[in-house]
């Protein structure tokens, strides 16, 4: 038997924080690729600490629903899962290249394949582009458009910016959008000045965040000048300084994220049959039948 655990942050204050985790877990459940699928959280239940014992499978694939390698993927999750002999060096990563390490756990007779975060997987590039397609309603969006990939960024962890830059570079190499730039909340170049960095009239802004919350639904829209007050909402697109800003909201809510979760597990040796294909086809169908452009507002998270 094989099990999948999707490890996410969750929230004590905001009930919506776990929605993407549940949604992607359900998508994977419906493929039947795993005997068991569990959501696990740092701030909700089941906690990382107690999830492994709820499984009957001997092989467990843990995929962190986090954007970058850093504090949570290197310290918190391995410690709370009781991954024995864990050392970040075992990922042998340059900051975006962690794939998998196979370890035992301290509280159960199981083998855990601890995967790199979804945010740094190559398949994530497609999710960002897919997000741009969704928000513009154009399946071939690119020509005449600029694309901003937005990250949290933090001086404390250089890997945070690396993940954003990695996908920015990969999308730029595709020659699909006129311009592709990485922007940040907490470091230069800042998302506040988005219009300074683009010549294109139309700019799609995709935040590389796992869930919608305080940053993606309050901070960034206000800082970019989409709205005076997040509670009033904003139009997509919104005219700012002569540019049309197509703001996409957190990429983590995109259906195709479930495919990235599966790719991570497959890279770690999970036997998935055609599950990834089923998920990709499902996301494509969903994409053409839904024209959802209205952002949702949410309460500040923690």
């Amino acid at each position, binding site marked *: 038997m094989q099990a999948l655990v999707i490890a996410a942050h969750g929230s004590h204050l*905001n009930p919506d924080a776990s929605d993407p985790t549940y949604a992607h877990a359900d998508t994977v459940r419906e493929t039947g690729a795993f005997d068991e699928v569990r959501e696990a959280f740092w701030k*909700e239940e089941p906690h990382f600490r*107690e999830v492994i014992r709820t499984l009957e499978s001997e092989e467990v694939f843990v995929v962190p629903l986090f954007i970058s390698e850093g504090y949570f993927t290197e310290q*918190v999750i391995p410690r709370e899962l009781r991954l024995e002999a864990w050392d970040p060096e075992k990922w042998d990563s340059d900051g975006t290249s962690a794939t998998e390490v196979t370890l035992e756990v301290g509280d159960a007779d199981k083998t855990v394949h601890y995967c790199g975060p979804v945010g740094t997987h190559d398949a994530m590039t497609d999710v960002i582009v897919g997000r741009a397609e969704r928000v513009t309603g154009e399946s071939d969006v690119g020509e005449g458009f600029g694309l901003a990939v937005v990250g949290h960024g933090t001086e404390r962890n250089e890997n945070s910016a690396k993940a954003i830059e990695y996908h920015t570079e990969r999308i730029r190499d595709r020659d699909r959008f006129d311009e592709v730039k990485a922007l940040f909340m907490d470091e230069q170049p800042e998302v506040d000045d988005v219009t300074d960095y683009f010549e294109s009239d139309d700019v799609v802004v995709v935040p590389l965040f796992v869930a919608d919350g305080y940053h993606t639904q309050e901070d960034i829209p206000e800082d970019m000048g989409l709205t005076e007050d997040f509670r009033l909402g904003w139009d997509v697109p919104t005219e700012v300084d002569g540019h049309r800003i197509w703001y996409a909201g957190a990429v983590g809510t995109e259906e195709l994220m479930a495919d990235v979760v599966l790719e991570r597990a497959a890279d770690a040796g999970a036997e998935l049959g055609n599950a990834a294909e089923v998920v990709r086809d499902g996301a494509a169908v969903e994409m053409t039948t839904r024209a959802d452009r209205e952002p949702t507002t949410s309460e500040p998270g923690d």
Partner: protein
Amino acid sequence: MVDVANVVAAADDEGVLEFDGLRLESPENGENKGYVLETPSSEPATLEPDALRDTLESVYRFVTNWHYWQERVGGEGTARRAFLRWCERAPVAGREHAPGSDASEPLSVPDRDDALRDGIDREWGQLCITARYLDVDRPDGERVYDLWHVDDAGTDVSDLEVYDDPRDAREIATTDDDGRYRPLKTAPTLPSGWAFTGLSGDELVDAVDFFYPATVANWHRERLGDLDVDHWLETARRQTGIYDVIDELPRDAVEWMAEACCVDSQCLRRREWQYADDDELAVDGGEGAFPCREPCSLVVAAARKWAILESESERTYELELTTSEFNQLAELIDAVAEGRTDEIREADVNDGANRYRARYLRAKRFDGDELEARARSEDDR
């Protein structure tokens, strides 16, 4: 219908089949001339295959019981199986630890056979679980499970919102009856008004796991005597980042914290963790069916706040209050701590925590947005 040939084939495979009082020994196992069949109500009888078949028909409920547990549920040694056995009061390995639990003897196969026709009820936190036969008129051992809120035990199912997908439990458990987010799944604030009916055993366990994550797994470990409890100091010391400070929380404060957060009125898990392995907290851990094996993330987050607050030194304040106003402060704190502010009637000015009473006190005793008081300097102490 369960074909009795299945149980005979299983006995042939195993040599001797023993389950819940049914014992069937195959002739291939020893020197018997036929099959040896025994139940708690019948002496061992040696039977030829034809006679065996007829006799098994007469103890059919033992056969269907075997079929359900061994062929349908399986999972020998798993928490899932133990929990489903517990649901119908079948014998379960290990022992019950909850002080408030029903310590009555497990039911025999015939007793369960009778009881499953009407349904056997169990409580798990605020959940009520009924195990019953799917087909009451011609039971073939197949069980289904119903799940609802204990407060709805007397409510007709037609008055409840009925669900059949265990994943719906996540949505139900997200908010309380007032629509407030429930970050602690085992808080005694599960909303009522819903029911899951006709769940399979696997679906029941999934639903219970969504309502009260990991409680079945930890209950099972506790029964078997291998619950791995992490006491306060162990949990506090392994924290990093912004929670690194919580191991500085004084021992008294840990006691107050457990009294504030971890009692039955606030959480249905039974606290088994102590201050340290050889240092028990005085406050009662509660009577819940399922154990709490270490401080949860909410306790850790709150402990950070208290660790920071407890680093302040105490001071002496001088302020003017009448005796009734002094007592009113206690009433206000108590009303908030007990969560009863919503119950205080609008015009009940006899209650010190009444809103008008609080507003009056604020109007009288506040200077700006602070209580008017003079702090004595450290030198005065």
